[in-house]
């Protein structure tokens, strides 16, 4: 139990996917100008991450044991189809939810956080539950970073940011500062 909790906490804050591992930077830079959008993107990500973790576990356990060289291809194909299926399902089941999340789902396919999760989970040899905790933590961490960045960006829109810093440079500096602040979580639960 405590191991699962640590895995979740680690992926969420200690080794935050975005701020420490630089995964999921595309949405972080692109979709982080509004808090509401960030939240939806985050929710979509959590969902897909958990599904990915489960399918990566299934693939690793039952399919890829003897053909590790096909891992990358299988992952990318499975993730792409998964997102496709999820998109279609949501569209059928809940058009409202689709309007909220739908447009973000195709973007997720090319989000390195998803593939990164599958690869990290494999290389660390996580089991099913560990993978689940990992995916949940990673998703929450992504959402946290995304939403924090979005709320800060909304605020800096009101600021007199010097011309040379406007845009990506400022976002990077803020991300660096956030990453610096997240260093405070280092060693959490390992001090005992």
């Amino acid at each position, binding site marked *: 139990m405590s191991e699962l909790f640590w895995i979740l906490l680690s992926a969420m804050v200690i080794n935050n996917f975005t701020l420490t591992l630089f995964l999921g930077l595309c949405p972080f830079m692109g979709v982080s100008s509004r808090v509401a959008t960030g939240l939806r993107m985050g929710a979509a990500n959590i969902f897909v991450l958990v599904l990915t973790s489960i399918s990566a576990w299934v693939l690793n356990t039952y399919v890829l044991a003897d053909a590790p060289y096909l891992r990358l291809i299988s992952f990318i194909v499975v993730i792409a189809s998964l997102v496709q299926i999820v998109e279609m399902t949501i569209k059928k089941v809940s058009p409202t939810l689709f309007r909220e999340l739908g447009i973000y789902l195709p973007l997720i396919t090319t989000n390195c956080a998803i593939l990164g999760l599958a690869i990290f989970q494999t290389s660390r040899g996580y089991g099913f539950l560990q993978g689940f905790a990992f995916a949940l933590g990673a998703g929450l961490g992504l959402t946290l970073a995304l939403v924090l960045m979005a709320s800060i960006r909304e605020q800096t829109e009101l600021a007199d940011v010097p011309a040379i810093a406007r845009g990506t440079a400022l976002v990077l500096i803020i991300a660096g500062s956030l990453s610096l602040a997240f260093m405070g979580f280092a060693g959490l639960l*390992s001090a005992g």
Partner: protein
Amino acid sequence: MSPGSVHGPGAPAPPDEPRTPAWRLLATLGSGGALAGLLLVVVYQLTLPRIEAHKAEALQQAIEEVLHDPARFDTLYLNAGQLTRELPAGADPRALERVYLGYDDAETPVGFAITAAEPGFQDVIRLIFGFDPKTGALLGMKVLETKETPGLGDKIEKDSAFVSQFTGVAAPLQGVKKGAGKGKPGEVDLITGATISSRTVVRAINRALERWRPALAAYRERRP
């Protein structure tokens, strides 16, 4: 990737395009996949020996380091609480936990090499250590994987004064502040400024030993 620059895999084809029959789509993907698979098998077979060799070499190096150049070593698998030299029939070798038993030139066992992992300051620290059940003392320790802070936490790997303490120290270990030791057996001086990382090493070894002790003891008893 900027949204919209690339259509998703399922994006509808532009209406002015001629319809391609489904079999052609499947055939393209299928043959592409087959070709890719074929290519990868070839590359995999070509690189496999070297990769395996690298891995084996790394493992051997680590074991040699923590068991002080044994003449040879065996891999023991943990199966149902028992350590066995042979792989149990039908068992998946990847799923089994293992330790390594080293022998000296006279074929006498010198000790076990055991891997351990614990969350450290930044991320999980993985290490291997040598343990001699006869004396209850460690033979050596080597960090296999760490992401601890460069210049600080990574001293657990790079600071020879710290690493060398794990040779000959009695288990269970006790981490103490540098210079604050009372001369008791099992004391290990922690690294100033990297207390958490160095303490994690101590804890990882202690926990691994605690976990392995029954199996190690049982294995010794069964040997002549």
